[in-house]
Structure formats: structure tokens, C-alpha cells
């Protein structure tokens, strides 16, 4: 890269169960605006320098509709000179926001960007209000519209991953998240939000008491003969995230706190019936572009859409799971679709700094059969 791109801030909302959690009454545009506001204030960036707000969202309709990014600029009280665009790559949406900002910076098309993501899975249902698939494609390519749970079952069969192994993985995710929450390690990244007269400042999906025995009681959620349950799937979640992406030059000149430098990015398509394996192709490309091996990576944020999905990726890549998701993954924290990409990339950057490591990877799978990946290095 000829112009270095850095992540100079990361924040998110608390994550809560959709439909029953603390954020059900919060509009998604308000939720992400509050997060963006928190990010901008904490980072110390001059808001008038911000070129664009690039906002990821997987189901941009209803309260998430129109060009939500532009509206969030206004809701967050940013100057009118800040532009806004809403992008959709399903679960990869807000990682895509970061990639687009990086590309723009390298083109010389701006110095500093807010790259955010949001999903209220309470207020806009998954599949949207008007699912109208192309009937011919639905016949020709069954994976195109396949339910995510079914793709997870397909992975379980392909990689011969047992239900018990998935449950152990899920329990570990909760254990790590609970420990991080207990130790206050999540507090800094959360921007509290007021709703119903209360301030919500903690995550709501983590179940510290869950156990392999408890999970073993659940019925399969997607296939009565299958192995994937609600307990080994990421929950439907309300949440928002935001990162500040800038040229290294701008960040240094303006005294911003640099968390990490972008080293490479990639996207890749795969068989949609096993969409969860998407991170493999994307990660291989990104590692090659960065000129490093997976074994060189110290910190990994590998999204947990499903336990079996994250495990299949780890198995295929030969990933050392002890480096992955140090503060828990989406199974415990939640997976507000459009918000996850910025969360895991911002988190990987923050962890590089906290743990004093050199190289980090964030990667996730995407419905329809895709993967996206980002390699970061200590700045």
C-alpha cells in the first residue's frame, strides 16, 4: 500500500437479544447514531474532517431503509459536510465499510472515515419484510436463498463435527465472554445508550452459567435429524458498531490514537450451500496479499455465526483456536448482522494494542456464499 490506512478508534453499542432484550424499543438509526457519536467524541477527531459515514446493514429497509447512513450523520449531530452511504454485504457489511474507506483513502479520496454497522433484528426481520426470491433462481441454485441454519448443518456433515464438539465450543465462547465482561474488558468499547429511562451499558446475550449438559437438552433448531441448536448458533441480536478509519498521516498529524494498521483485505465467493466456509478463501487471499502465513498471526477474530461454522473454518485453515476470539465470539456476544464486521475488525485492532502483538486477522462468512477478511498489523 502506498498510503497507510489505520484504525484510529473502535466503539460499539451493548449487544442484546432481539425481541426480548434491552434494545427492542430502540430504533436502529438511533442506536448506531449514538454509537457513532460516542466514537467521534472518544477519538477526538475533528468531525468536519470526516469525509463519509459508510454504514453496513444487511436488511436496509423499514427503519433501516432509505439511505440510513445520511440520516445517521444528522442524528449523530455530525456536520452536514459529512457524506453518508449505506452498504450491504449481509454479515460482511461493516467490514466492507472499512475496506471501502481504505480504498478511498488510497485513492486520495478522503483522510478520515466513520465505518459503522447496525442491525435491529427486532425491528426489521431477517429476510426483510418482503422476501420475494426469483423463482427460477430458487429452482436452479437452491443455495442462493438457503436458510443459514441449513448451511450450518451441511458443514456439520461435511466436516464430521459432532454436536457435542459444537456445544463445547459454544460453552467456551460464553466462558471467555463472561470472563471478559467480569474483568471489565468490554467496558471501554461499549457506548451506553438510554432507553425507557434506563442506561444500558452491558451486553445482554452472554450466559455465564451455560454448560454442555444444559445445551445437550435443546432440540435441533433447523433439521430434526441435525446437530445445530439455538445454543450453538449466534442469537438474533440488536446492536451497532463503529470504527474510525484514517490515513496514517492524518491520524498522526491530528494526534489520534492508532490501534492498528491495515495490511491487506480480501473477499471471496464459495458454494452457497456451505456459505459458512467463506472465510477460508478470503483469509487465504488476504494472507497472501499481506505476505504472511496464518501461523504468523497472533490475534484472530473469526466470527461465530454458528459453532460448527467457525469450527469448520478453523479446521480447514489449521487455525490455532487459542488465538481466536479472546473475549468471546458471536455465539456469546451476539451477531447483529450488519454490525459484526466493524466489531470484529475494531476488536482485532484493539486487541493487538492491548495484548502487545504484531499481526491480527478478522474474518467472517456471508450468506449467499462469501467470505471477507482483513489483516492488521501493530502500528
Amino acid at each position, binding site marked *: 500500500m502506498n498510503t497507510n490506512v489505520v484504525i484510529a478508534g473502535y466503539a460499539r453499542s451493548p449487544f442484546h437479544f432481539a425481541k426480548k432484550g434491552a434494545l427492542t424499543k430502540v430504533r436502529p438509526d438511533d442506536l448506531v447514531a449514538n454509537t457513532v457519536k460516542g466514537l467521534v467524541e472518544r477519538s477526538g477527531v475533528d468531525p468536519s474532517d470526516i469525509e463519509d459515514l459508510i454504514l453496513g446493514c444487511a436488511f436496509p429497509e423499514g427503519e433501516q431503509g432509505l439511505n440510513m447512513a445520511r440520516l445517521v450523520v444528522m442524528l449523530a449531530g455530525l456536520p452536514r459536510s459529512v457524506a453518508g452511504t449505506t452498504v450491504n454485504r449481509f454479515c460482511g457489511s461493516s467490514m466492507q465499510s472499512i475496506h471501502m474507506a481504505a480504498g478511498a483513502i488510497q485513492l486520495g479520496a478522503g483522510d478520515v472515515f466513520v465505518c459503522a454497522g447496525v442491525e435491529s433484528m427486532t425491528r426489521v426481520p431477517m429476510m426483510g*419484510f*418482503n*422476501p420475494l*426470491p426469483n423463482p427460477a433462481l430458487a429452482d436452479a441454485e437452491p443455495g442462493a436463498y438457503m436458510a443459514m441454519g441449513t448451511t450450518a448443518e451441511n458443514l456439520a456433515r461435511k466436516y464430521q463435527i459432532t454436536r457435542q464438539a459444537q456445544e463445547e465450543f459454544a460453552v467456551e465462547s460464553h466462558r471467555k465472554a463472561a470472563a471478559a465482561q467480569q474483568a471489565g474488558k468490554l467496558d471501554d468499547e461499549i457506548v451506553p445508550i438510554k432507553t425507557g429511562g434506563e442506561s444500558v451499558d452491558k451486553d445482554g446475550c452472554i450466559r455465564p452459567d451455560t454448560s454442555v449438559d444444559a445445551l445437550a437438552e435443546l432440540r435441533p433448531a*433447523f*433439521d430434526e435429524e441435525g446437530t445445530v441448536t439455538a445454543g450453538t448458533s449466534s442469537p438474533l441480536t440488536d446492536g451497532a458498531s463503529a470504527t474510525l478509519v484514517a490515513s496514517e498521516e492524518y491520524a498522526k498529524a491530528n494526534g489520534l490514537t492508532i490501534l492498528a494498521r491495515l495490511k491487506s483485505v480480501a473477499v471471496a465467493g464459495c458454494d452457497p450451500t456451505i456459505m459458512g466456509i467463506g472465510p477460508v478463501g478470503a483469509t487465504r487471499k488476504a494472507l497472501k496479499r499481506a505476505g504472511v502465513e496464518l501461523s504468523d498471526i497472533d490475534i484472530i477474530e473469526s466470527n461465530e455465526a454458528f459453532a460448527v461454522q467457525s469450527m469448520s473454518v478453523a479446521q480447514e485453515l489449521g487455525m490455532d483456536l487459542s488465538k481466536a476470539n479472546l473475549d468471546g465470539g458471536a455465539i456469546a456476544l451476539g451477531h447483529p448482522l450488519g454490525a459484526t464486521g466493524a466489531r470484529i475488525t475494531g476488536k482485532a485492532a484493539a486487541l493487538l494494542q492491548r495484548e502487545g502483538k504484531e499481526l491480527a486477522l478478522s474474518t467472517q462468512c456471508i450468506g449467499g456464499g462469501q467470505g471477507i477478511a482483513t489483516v492488521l498489523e501493530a502500528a
Partner: protein
Amino acid sequence: MEIKKAAVIGAGVMGSGIAAHIANAGVPVTLLDIAPEGADDRDAIAKGALTRMAKADPAPFMSRAAQKLVTPGNIEDHLETLGECDWIVEAVIENPKIKHELYGRLEPIVKPEAVVSSNTSTIPLSILTEGRSDAFRSSFMVTHFFNPPRYMRLLEIVSGPSTDQAKLDAIHRFADMRLGKGVVMAKDTPGFVANRIGTFWIQAGLNEAFDLGLSVEEADAIASRPMGVPKTGIFGLMDLVGIDLMPHIAKSLLATLPENDAYRDIFRVEPFIETMISDGYIGRKGKGGFYRLNLEAGGRVKESINLKTGEWSKSEKIKVDAAEAGRQGLRAVVDHDSRPGEYAWRMLSQTLSYAAFLVPEIADSIVDVDDAMKLGYAWKYGPFELIDQLGVDYFADRLQQQGRPVPDLLEKARGRSFYRVEDGALQYLGVEGDYADVVRPDGVLLLADIKRQSEPLLKNGSAALWDIGGGVTCFEFTAKMNTLDDQVMELLARALDLTGRSHKAMVVYNEGTNFSVGANLGLAMFAANIAMWGQVEALVKGGQDTYKALKYAPFPVVSAPSGMALGGGCEIMLHSDAVQAHAETYCGLVEVGVGVIPAWGGSKEMLLRAIANKRRPGGPMPPVAQVFETIGTAKVARSAQQAKELMYLKPDDGVTMNRDRLLADAKARALALVEAEYQPPAPPDEIMLPGPSARAGLNMVVSDLAAQGKATPHDIVVSDALATVLSGGDHDVTEPLAEDELLTLEREAFMSLVKTSGTLDRIEHMLETGKPLRN
């Protein structure tokens, strides 16, 4: 006085159920119980009752809105708040000392115009008011509900000599109009009316079953349908209410009954039953009673206990000749020369003569006693109606022959009957031996009365049309279970024509247990079996045409359902200008259960409603998806309120709490529409539907459900047909459909399904077992 705020003290089964039902009437209720010692949450008992009720089946609440009207609390911290209440119901434990103490605390709190009533079932009012001030006595009465309070229609009200008449009237009116209760004014005597006779009946039924060596099945086969008593009979009823309760009820009755009361003669403690209780066989709430469900080895085998040996064996459906003889009338049952026949006579004769001895001691008239047993014990006929069925003289003579005492009232009735119809009016025999008209309260109109007084305007084997006055006709279904067939459609078409020529409005109503359980499946099955597809299609088309004619008739049509309104019975509501529903209406489009889809315009009407719903999310898909879910999963509303949530009822459709007021309310609604210069509805604007894309989307959902084991292979077939109709078939999203095109889609989908073996299997299974087949 108007009741705007109420309270119930005592959050047990009865108290919490009463609170829930007052909330069903739309009145906020405070529900209090004691604060458990040392508890963190001092409202825990009342809150626990609310949690339990939210999950209970049958549900005490009619809607979620009603749930929110109940505020839990405890008598230590919240008794003062009852000062705002207009009606306070005490439903605490049956202990005079505890009740006295509570009344003492309430006395300074309640406002002067409020009513305090007790739900006691056993303690005389005279004892309850001992030591109370005159003011309290004038505000006090007994309001005795039956369990479960939402569903059992009887409310016995007992007043004392000092009870204020205006307050009595106010509670009577509220119970009638808002709680939907059939009120019986009982005297202040032990057990009041229904339990006095009911307890005697149960005891007589037990005694004679043991003495005559009947099995529980034999006894229950007699003490049920042949007498118009619910099929639980006596042993099944004991299981339902709790066998362990019986000794308590007996004890309290024995403590207060007159010295010479016949119950004292027949009361006995069966050692066999004592053993059952001590073994934990106390009924359905325990591990079983006289019947139990054996779940061993993963099965569900209904078993019954042998009254001689105490051993369990499979409970078989048995044919009891004496019970079968009931087809020739009740007398054939008690005359039957067999042990079950003798059982019927002994149990009935004791019970009926007991009842005849008790008028006027426990109630002013035989009508009150009959009403109490019908509303409180769900008997189809009251004791005096049963005597009429036996014949007064027959009954009196046979008692006499057996050397048993003949009640005065029965003697007075000799040569006559307790009820008669004179000039079309129903009359009853008063205690002085004179007949008097059975007077219905204002606002109560019964088709049964009209039928006594007039001939139908039209009639065939499945339906009838009546003139109910004021220029309004009443269309009545009359087939078994009020099923619908081509005869109903034929008569409905004629009824619409006649009403249009000579009347102002029509009401669709009947007094069956269920408004209608839908189309006559037997007929459809018969036609399908011999591949008379033309006839099947003609039946579908005939129904569509008739319901459409009803919708666009030049006069208002109001449907007034009560009980089940399923399939075609629900579709007629959907086509009506307005619905006046009894609160206990259970409606739904359940066609998929038998492998077809609503095709008398029901799919179309639901779709039009969903499209017109202003509160739905935008876009073409939400109304289609919503109706697909409602019909595709055969959702049945468990109350009229819930029917509004499911859109089977429109927001402005009326709800009547009291079954007996339904026809009058529906008639008034129809006449109000006439007054408002009724115009038939305009046909819907061009209907825009999303077409094959939506069908593909809905089918994906169903195939995911199938993978989860929540949909069967034939569900996929039926759902696809439903999706085809609701999405507009092959129409592109840019091409509008007309109403008739939707009807054609319905018909095509129905015909494609009815020719599949999966659907025929479902229909056959439903006819044979009454349950849906999951194929």
C-alpha cells in the same frame, strides 16, 4: 353504581380466576393475597397466580390486554388501596374466623357506595356478617362463582335481610352484562343451589355404583349422555374436581344442613375411596383418579380402576344397553331391565326427588334450580325438565310404589308437567301449583322462544329462516354439529332473496353449542370416493356464489357466532357486514387440517383484510405472509378478543359477554346498520399481489419447517396450493386481479388438493377419529 375498579382478595384458583374474568370484562382489578413471611417479594403469591394463569389451558384470560388489567399485591401493604374499588370480592380460605378478621380490616377502608361480596361456597351469609356494622351488612352479599370462573356460566347471588337492593341490582347487572353470567338468586341455605343438588347427585351416583357393582365406565355411560350430563359422568367429574375435595365439601355441608336433610341419609365414606386418596389417586391434578393416563413405555393408555379389586386395566369404550336405550327417551333408560338400568333409576330418582323437596327452600322457583344445574354443572336439562321427560305421574307413582316419600311439589304437578307451552309461551309450575310465564330479562332474545311461537319462513333439512321481529330474519343452521352442505347454501340463497324482498336485515345465528364446525366432510368424502368431481366443484362454486351474494346483498347481514366457528362457519362471518360475537367464540380457518384450503371465499376475504390493515408493514409481502401463516397453521382464536388479533373479527365487530343476549345484540346491530342507511360494500379495488416470487418465498419457509420436523410431506403440498392462491397464482406483480379471479384460484387449489390421496387420507382420518392426520 357503575363498577369501574374491582379487587379480589385471595389468589387461589377461584380468586385469581375471578380476577381474570373481571379483567376480561375490561375492568381493572387488584388481586391480593397474604405476604408470605420473610419473603423477598411480598406480592409473590398473587404474582405467582398471574404467571400460572398466563400459561393455563383453558386460559382464564381472553386476551393479553386483559392480563395487563390485573395488578398483584398483598393484604399487608395494599389493603388501603381498596378504598378506590367499587366491588371487592373475598375469595380466601373457607374459614369464618379468617373471613371475619378480614372484613373487620376492610370495614374502615371500603367506600360507602362499594360492594363487598364473598365467594364462599359453604358458609351462610348470616354467619359471615356476624358482628359487622349495619353499613357493612347493607353492602355485603355472596357472589358464588363456579370453577373455572371464565367458562362456567353460573353465578349464584345470595343477599341478606340488610343487603341494599340497589347494590344487589348493580352486581346482578354487571354479572349479567359484563361477566356474561347466568345469575341465579339463591337463598341463604347450605351449599346454595347447584352444589346442594350436585353434591347429593355425586354421592348418590357413587353409592349406587358401589352397591350395584358397576364399573366406572358403566356408571359414567349412564350418568352422562342419556341424561344430558357432560360425558365425564360422575367418576370422571370427581377426577376433574379432585377426589380429595369431596370429604371437605361433605364436612362443611353436614355442619350446616338441616337435621332431616336427605343428604345425611345417603352420605357415607367409601373405604375404597379413602384408600385412593391416601395413595395419591386424587384425580387429574394428582397421579390419576378413577381414570388415569398410563404413560409407561412411551404410550398413552387410558386406564380405569376396578372398584372391587383396585386393579388398573385399559379403559375400553363400552356399549351399555341401558344407555343405548336412551334413544327412546329417558324413561327407557330407567325402565331398562339391567343393573345399569336400575342404577339410572336409583341415582336419578333420589336426585330429582331431593331437588323437588328443596323448592322453595333453596330458590323461589323450579326455573332457578334448573338454571343453576344447567349453568353450573353443564347439565343439558335441569332436574325438573328431567322429571318432565320421565313424566310427572310415572315418577310419582314409581316413588310411591317403592314406598318412598313423594315431594309436595311433585304431588301438585300430578297429571301435568313442570313446564308447558301455552299460546307459544313457555310456562313453569309455581310452588302454589299455578303456571306462570318464564320471563326473559330485557335484552334477552332466544331463538328457542321464537321457535315455540312461530313457524319458519323457510326450512329444509340443514337450515331454517325465522322472523325475529323488527323486520329482521334469522338464518339458522340445523344439521348435526351445524355442519354446512349444499342444502345450507340452497336455503341461504333463498333466504337472501326473501329477506331482500320483505325484510330489512338478516342475522346468522343459532343456539347450538357450536355456531358451525364447517363443511360436511362426510358428504365431500362420499363424492370424492366415487370421483364425482363435478359435484365437488359445484359445491365449492355454490358456496362461493352464495357467500358472495351475502356480502353484496342490498341489506345488512350480521353473523352472531358462539362456540366453534370453523372453516365454512368462519367464512360466513368473514363475508358478513358485521359480526356480533359471543365472547366465547372459537373461530378459525382450519381447512388445512383436512388437506384443503378455505375456498368459499375465506382465503380471499382474509387476504383483503390483511391488505387493508393500515398497521401492517409496507410492501406486497406482509399481508400475504400473515394470512399464509394464519390459514397455513390453522390458527384458532380462543376468544372473540383473540379473533380480533387474528383478524377473523374486524376491530369494530361487537362482542357480547352473555350468551343469552347475543341474538338481541346482533339484531340491534343489524337494525343500526339499517338506520345508518346501509349501502352494500363496494367491490375491492384492483388487488395487487406479488405473484410467483412470493410463492417461492413462502415455499422456502415451509421446506425449512419440514427440515425442522414441523411440517409434514403433505403439509408441503397443501401449503404450496395455499401459497399459490394468496400470492395471486401466475399473475405478475404489475397485473391487478379481480375478486372473482381470486375465487377461481381458491377453487382450482381446492380441486387440485381434494384429488390427492394425502388429502383424502386426512378427510377420512378426521371423520373416523375427529383428529387431524399428520401425513
